């Protein structure tokens, strides 16, 4: 059991508001970890801290990619975090809407390729090869995520479920060891959610990507996760396997409000 992400004592304040309050969390290699909690509990803020969009006020975030040394990543710029192998999706879909589906995924390859201006202008053999590799790689990812039939569509014209998938496709194009999914099932219908379940499992099993996700669809969370963290008011209020969580009265209270069974 290798821990690949360690978060210690993470605290984030906005003005007078404390969004994250001394939060601890670990992600284990090869696992699907879920973060749940009511609206406004600080889950997305947590993601933003990990991915470098916010710089936390206190605490440490340590990433240890499989086979590599452990390193502190808080304070890094978002693009460096991605380059280190942590990719993410966004809660309110942020695709490049006027680019095609394939191009969206190709952008994900940016940090794993290197040709520059001169290369592009001269278009030498290595540039052509790199470009071809990018296209093939991206197309394969589209196939894997099940949206390869939409390859030349503009991202903005995709149905909602496909847009969510494209976000995932784009993120895994950066070859992450850890993928952060921010409410991947939001707005999906039951069939799409089922397919998403399969996709996420496949990413873990076949591509060896560990997953940390924020999700509200409890059915999905319970069936997918190996480990669940429950967050409320920026604090961790519970953690454990799905089984533990279901039977934890604190969790039920946080979610449904008090005394649901009364």
């Amino acid at each position: 059991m290798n821990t690949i992400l360690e978060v210690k004592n993470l605290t984030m304040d906005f003005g007078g508001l404390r969004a994250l309050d001394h939060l601890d969390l670990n992600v284990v290699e090869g696992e699907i970890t879920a973060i749940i909690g009511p609206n406004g509990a600080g889950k997305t803020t947590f993601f933003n801290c990990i991915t470098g969009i916010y710089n936390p006020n206190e605490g440490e975030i340590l990433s240890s990619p499989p086979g590599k040394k452990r390193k502190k990543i808080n304070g890094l710029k978002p693009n460096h975090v991605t380059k280190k192998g942590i990719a993410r999706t966004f809660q309110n879909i942020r695709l490049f809407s006027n680019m095609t589906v394939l191009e969206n995924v190709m952008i994900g390859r940016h940090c794993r390729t290197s040709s520059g201006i001169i290369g592009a202008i001269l278009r030498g053999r290595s540039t052509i090869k790199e470009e071809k590799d990018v296209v093939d790689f991206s197309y394969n990812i589209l196939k894997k995520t099940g949206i390869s039939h939409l390859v030349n569509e503009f991202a903005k014209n995709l149905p909602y479920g496909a847009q969510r998938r494209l976000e995932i496709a784009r993120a895994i194009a950066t070859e992450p060891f850890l993928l952060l999914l921010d409410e991947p099932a939001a707005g999906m219908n039951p069939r799409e959610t089922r397919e998403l379940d399969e996709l996420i499992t496949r990413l873990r099993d076949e591509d060896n990507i560990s997953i940390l996700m924020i999700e509200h669809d409890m059915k999905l969370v319970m069936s997918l996760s190996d480990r669940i963290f429950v967050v409320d008011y920026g604090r961790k209020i519970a953690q454990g396997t799905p089984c533990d969580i279901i039977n934890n009265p604190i969790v039920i209270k946080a979610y449904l409000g008090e005394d649901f069974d009364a």
Partner: protein
Amino acid sequence: MIKFQEIKKSFLVSLWFMFLTFPIMVIRVNPIEKIVEWRWKNMIIVGIGSFLLSFVWRYMLKKREAGEKRAETWESGKTSFMQRILEERRFYIPLVTGLTIIAVAFPFIFSMYQTSIMTTALMYIVLGLGLNIVVGLAGLLDLGYVAFYAVGAYSYALLNHHFGLGFWSALPIGAVLGFIFGILLGFPVLRLRGDYLAIVTLGFGEIIRLVLKNWNEFSFGPSGIANIDRPGFFGIQFSLQAATIYLYFLMIGLVIFTIIVVNRLQNSRIGRAWIALREDETACQAMGIDKTRTKLRAFALGATWAGMVGVIFAAKTTFINPASFTFLESAMILSIVVLGGMGSISGVIIGALILILLPEYLRAFSDYRVLIFGAIMVIMMVFRPQGIISNIRRTYKFNE
């Protein structure tokens, strides 16, 4: 049937504009001789003009609204007529061949004067394509583009004046200096948001112009630099006529070179990053793209082209002074990009030809030239922000 309501609306608009333009359009004063001239005719023109235009304006707004709704609900599989011509080989090849023949024959058919105008138009095509990298592809509104143009022009003029350096040696130097200035100016400002960036670049442009105007020892001040050498060819100096033709072909060459470069860039790793950055910066960073570095590349590359054309400008006119590098010049290049279509190569070419050639040939127009530039920017943004020819995304085919 035009409804009574509509007529009433237009009538009110017309009244409003007659009121609005009354002091400026109708009265003209000469404070020195204390004469007041009343031009009531203008009021009638404004009245009728705004009455008619308000119909057009409302009609276009309605059409735009309908278009937006349609784009939201339908899959926008339709491409415009112009795009199809440009995409299909069947149309594309004869079009290119035709253009090549016209381009080659042009200076031999038409007068020197015409050739010279065409050369100017070609220069603006290159400037437009250069700015298009910055504004169209990377989405950075650069209002001080002319500063780099000035850098190129002055570097050739000064090198030529002081050291007798020739055109061909100055051309790469101008380009490099443009690039360096692009990096120097771009580095501190590219973190800024869109509208701030616009103002800062505008400020930089003005600073450079004012320095050129006031620093007599360096730039010879407002009187400028004269007798700059025309481009030669391995030491041969041409007659005026030959030089004009020579410059024309040189520009044709540069246009083709620029088109190839911009086209290749557009479909490259870097070009994609620019477009993605324009669409969503946060998502881009989450994809591992270095925001500042990528923007800087676009900015500096655009500046390089401006520097290059600057050298050619100095060589063509043989005289330069700071008055050629005002904000209006930047605005003109910007309106070329906006009219043609941001991010679209063929659009920029057509935009430049329309905006540079039309006022030359329609003499009656030429007074209104700048006025029309302004109007074009407003109208295009409101009704057709993608320009005459919108940018087409490349499509790929895969065999399963």
